[in-house]
């Protein structure tokens, strides 16, 4: 994509900026618009309500109205807050969640970087989000914010371990850290997806399937905890902490936190889809191949990728409005006493099977 823009503009720096900003404007912003509305509609459906109905046909423009409202809001900085860090924190949080999109393969034709450290980069760069959240919580000079930030950081760094272990087991099986290559291995039909044992054949594939499903469940639960979604939303538990680390934020800064949260939701869903469900690969061949139209394939791949990502975002919403919130001690027990040991055993078993 960078090369195309370079041909078009002829300026290295300009084309670098454009290709870096592309996922934001082409994907994250429209996604956030749709996802916020979807969240409200899904929650309304689950609680037997109607949800937003007033703005636009069937309430479809509700999010647009909300964003216009947020634009106009006064930017309040509490007088005892640490102004520099208070203003820097939302940028840091958003930078962390946006940087993840650099390594996500949207389709065969569009991926930010083909770097060989792809998935490792994703795991590492999300730690910027933790630093940003701690910064926001501390700079607000508010006990709810600080408690929310500390809870959130503890939760994210704890749940990074099972995530990393499951990712490690997949990397061990595939022999690559590159997300594009990982996707290419799951090509052609859906039984080549890693949830069904990947491109392995025979007895190895059959043995792998149950452990892959266990790995997928562990990964999904821990990514859910990493993006602070219910049932793991104790950092912003309304009944205890008002709104957690962004209690003091208003207007655009709050909107940036919100955008970062939704960008994160899609990013982790995309990672789950890429690792276990074939990423941008179609579950059965492509229309482009059928009709012999080359340029149709990347578009189809982008479509499949979006559908898979959105499906996992929908599951996140589904869980949010179905399950109650965990207590802090339950959360930590679940991570350290159940998920990490299971992930370790799973890793060892997958390692043994891959040697057969």
């Amino acid at each position, binding site marked *: 994509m960078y090369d195309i823009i370079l041909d078009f503009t002829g300026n290295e720096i300009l084309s670098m900026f454009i290709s870096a900003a592309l996922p934001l404007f082409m994907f994250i912003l429209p996604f956030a618009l749709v996802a916020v509305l979807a969240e409200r509609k899904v929650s309304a459906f689950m609680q037997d309500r109607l949800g937003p109905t007033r703005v636009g046909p069937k309430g479809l423009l509700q999010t647009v109205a909300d964003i216009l409202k947020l634009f106009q809001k006064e930017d309040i900085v509490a007088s005892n807050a640490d102004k520099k860090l208070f203003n820097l924190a939302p940028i840091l949080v958003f930078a962390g969640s946006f940087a993840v999109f650099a390594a996500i393969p949207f389709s065969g034709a569009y991926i930010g970087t083909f770097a060989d450290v792809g998935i490792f980069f994703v795991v590492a760069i999300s730690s910027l989000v933790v630093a940003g959240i701690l910064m926001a919580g501390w700079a607000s000079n508010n006990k709810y914010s*600080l408690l929310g930030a500390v809870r959130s950081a503890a939760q994210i760094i704890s749940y990074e371990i099972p995530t990393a272990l499951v990712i490690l087991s997949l990397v061990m099986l595939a022999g690559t850290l590159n997300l594009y290559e990982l996707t290419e291995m799951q090509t052609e039909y859906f039984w080549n997806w890693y949830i069904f044992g990947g491109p392995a054949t025979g007895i190895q594939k059959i043995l792998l399937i149950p452990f892959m499903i266990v790995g997928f469940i562990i990964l999904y639960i821990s990514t859910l905890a990493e993006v602070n979604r219910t049932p793991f939303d104790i950092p912003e538990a309304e009944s205890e902490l008002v709104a957690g680390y962004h209690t003091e934020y208003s207007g655009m800064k709050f909107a940036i936190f919100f955008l970062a949260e939704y960008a994160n939701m899609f990013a982790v869903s995309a990672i789950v889809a890429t690792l276990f469900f074939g990423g941008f690969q179609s579950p059965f061949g492509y229309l482009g191949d059928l009709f012999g139209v080359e340029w149709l394939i990347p578009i189809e791949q982008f479509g499949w990728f979006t559908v898979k990502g959105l499906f996992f975002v929908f599951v996140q919403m589904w869980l949010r409005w179905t399950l109650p919130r965990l207590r802090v001690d339950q959360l930590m027990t679940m991570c350290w006493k159940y998920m990490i040991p299971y992930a370790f055993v799973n890793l060892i078993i997958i390692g043994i099977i891959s040697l057969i």
Partner: protein
Amino acid sequence: MNLYDIIFYIFAAITVVSGVITVTSKNIIYAAFSLLFTFFGVAGMYVLLGADFISIVQIIVYVGGILILLLFGVMLTNKVTSTDIKSGSVNVLPAVIGVALFAGALISIIIRTKWTETPGEIPLSTAGTLGSVLLNEYVIIFELLAVLLLIALIGAASIARRTKEETN
């Protein structure tokens, strides 16, 4: 001046400026957060040098691990954040002599070294090579380090547990 030069100078500026803030700031939280940007700038330098794996390790270990732990410690000890770090000047003369000697040595090394310039190549990925070297040639050292880390982990856990039982 091409794109990579500009990126290099941006990362260099981030590293140096935030490093200076880390050392001079009297507020411990500011120092900790500017350390974050120093680590990040160094990681950027590694990428420009073609060491992609090392740069990611830099981020995951220093930013994601050590720095978060440091911030956690600072934030949980309430009295540290509200007071300034006490800094003054004592032993000025010995300090000046030491710093001058060290700076002179560094500058003379920088001037005397014959810098070789080679045309830039697209660096190859290092992750695979690094992995095979670590697990083939240096496998004993690698395993010993793993055991050492495990011992440290168990030691830390047992120390933490013992103090808890005593207070009960």
